[in-house]
């Protein structure tokens, strides 16, 4: 028994030192690996500039002093103006003997006052909106989503606007379309024409459609049956063509589709 005790005492000397270091080491490891993340509880959004000041503590000092959590270097703000705290019932603001007072929704507060999302709170002349972080984050996410969709639509529209289209003449009766593949096309019955239209009423070289700048024009080539745009004759000159215009070549009707095909 005595030998065993001596042996125990001998071994315990080393074991105790090792275990003490181990316990302390595991505590230190636990402290080092522990993360103390800060969470935004609410925001003060400055009126006008719309600068957002996050409130990350449960008690936030507001004032002109550099030791405050939110520093507003304005003459109307006292060095230690107010405290915004998180209580069980929600967020509250308290005036800490400021010179110019604290106003919630335009009314000067005399005691601790509850703050709701969207309330206006003013420290002297510095005015803010109070925004609860959860509600505000949700609203901002929705707003961001809406803006994103709006931007995407605008971008799409811009792309569509900038894209170069190839127009065509649509013969709805024959369910046929003639693409205007060149910048100046002769329309007629002749095989030499850029666009060959096999109608007896159409002359061999009836009219010319050409592009000038970004606009398309039609010109009658002294045809016997005449050329009309939207039932008005094109004679001795040219006529600007617009998307959807109805072109009559000797009684044969075509629709001008300016955006028929993307280049």
């Amino acid at each position: 028994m005595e030998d065993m005790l001596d042996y125990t005492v001998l071994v315990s000397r080393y074991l105790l030192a090792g275990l003490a270091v181990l316990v302390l080491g595991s505590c230190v490891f636990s402290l080092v690996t522990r993360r103390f993340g800060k969470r935004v509880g609410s925001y003060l959004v400055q009126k006008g500039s719309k600068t957002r000041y996050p409130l990350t503590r449960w008690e936030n000092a507001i004032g002109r002093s550099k030791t405050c959590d939110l520093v507003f270097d304005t003459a109307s703000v006292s060095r230690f103006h107010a405290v915004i705290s998180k209580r069980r019932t929600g967020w509250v603001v308290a005036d800490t003997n400021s010179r110019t007072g604290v106003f919630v929704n335009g009314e000067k507060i005399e005691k601790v006052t509850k703050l709701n999302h969207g309330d206006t709170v003013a420290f002297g002349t510095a005015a803010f909106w109070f925004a609860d972080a959860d509600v505000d984050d949700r609203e901002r996410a929705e707003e961001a989503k809406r803006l994103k969709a709006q931007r995407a639509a605008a971008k799409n529209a811009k792309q569509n606007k900038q894209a170069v289209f190839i127009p065509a003449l649509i013969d709805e009766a024959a369910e046929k379309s003639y693409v205007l593949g060149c910048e100046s096309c002769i329309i007629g019955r002749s095989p030499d024409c850029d666009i060959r239209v096999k109608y007896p009423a159409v002359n061999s070289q009836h009219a010319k459609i050409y592009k000038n700048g970004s606009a398309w024009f039609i010109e009658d080539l002294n045809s016997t049956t005449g050329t009309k745009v939207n039932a008005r004759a094109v004679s001795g000159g040219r006529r600007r063509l617009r998307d959807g215009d109805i072109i009559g070549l000797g009684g044969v009707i075509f629709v001008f589709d300016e955006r028929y095909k993307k280049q």
Partner: protein
Amino acid sequence: MPEKKVTAKPKKKQQPFAWVSMLFFVSAFQIISALPVIFGSEEINREILFTFGGFLALEWGYFICARFLAEQRATELEIIAFMLSGIGLVTVASVKPEYAFKQFIAICIGLTGFIALLGIMRNVEVISLLRPVVAVGAVGLLGLNLVLARTINGALNWIEIGSFSIQPSELVKVAFIFVGAASLEKLQSTRSLTKYIIFSLGCIGALFLMRDFGTALIFFATFMVIAFLRSGDIKTIGLLSAVAVVGAAMIIYFRPHVASRFETYRHVWEYANEGGFQQTRVLIYASSGGLFGLGIGEGRLKNVFASTTDLIFGIICEEWGMIVAFCVVLCFAFVAVYALRLARNARSTVYTIAAVASAAMLLVQLALNVFGVTDLLPLTGVTLPFISRGGTSMICSWALFAFIKSADIKTYPKLEKQMDDA
């Protein structure tokens, strides 16, 4: 101040059994240290066996309840507290077995106080309501101490109730921090420290009258920390320090017997068998312990007066070895760093002040004890927190840990959820 991008870092993967492994290490440490004490004599010491069994049951019971009933995720502080209490219990049991059960009861009361104080600290409004009552109670207790106390070892700070004797100044330490902690709203509204200075002067003055200079020094150091935290003003602290130095000089000038108490300081070898007896014995026996110690119960310092109270650090050096003694000191350093990290993220300045002041109080007390017995500072007779024998000291140590723990958001998981919902 433009908006900063403040986002919580991604949650770390939980280590569900980290606390169990830590608890196993502590229990193994405690069981191995207790074996020589339980089986040291020819017969098994049943009283110590049951006392120690009770201590282990208390420890495991607390951790299981804390983990599963109170949903505690961070239990490092309690691990440290139980480890230090275990070292104290084994040391006391090896030197004075008859005091082991009393020490265990003190740990039980301390732990109960710890849980109760955590409950009180949960609500900042309750703290504000209780503060004046506690302040009046603390001053009253010190006044009662001056009237009723009897002098032990040169200090008038013990009140006897039946077979128990309590040291009110230890309880007032807790009240001192409780009264000093205040919410940010209160601090900004009343930027004056006057009331707290008056309260502190009352406490420190009473301690001087009780000739308990060690505790007075601890109170003063804690007062400075609280004053700085409350005012954030270095000038005020400088002014208060200057006033304190002038006050101390006046006391020494008009009451020379106070200075005579420190005449052996830095001259212990000249008074090796008189005033410097304890310090010289601590230095001799502690050095004989080496890195791994002589073994529990094998030392000789235990025969010196006050070995289980003021000189207990010497016993740890001698019997447990320098590594364990160094770990004890590092435990307090760990607690101080832990308190600072918690205080930076505390949900109210009440908790910030309480945690930092408690850590400061523990560190000052540790420094006065460890440096006192090694003659680096005058020996003032203060206890080593959690380890020294003494009920009120143990209760106070647990209470100080409660202040630190209350600064941790994770201590109140339900409250945190409630606040988030609000």
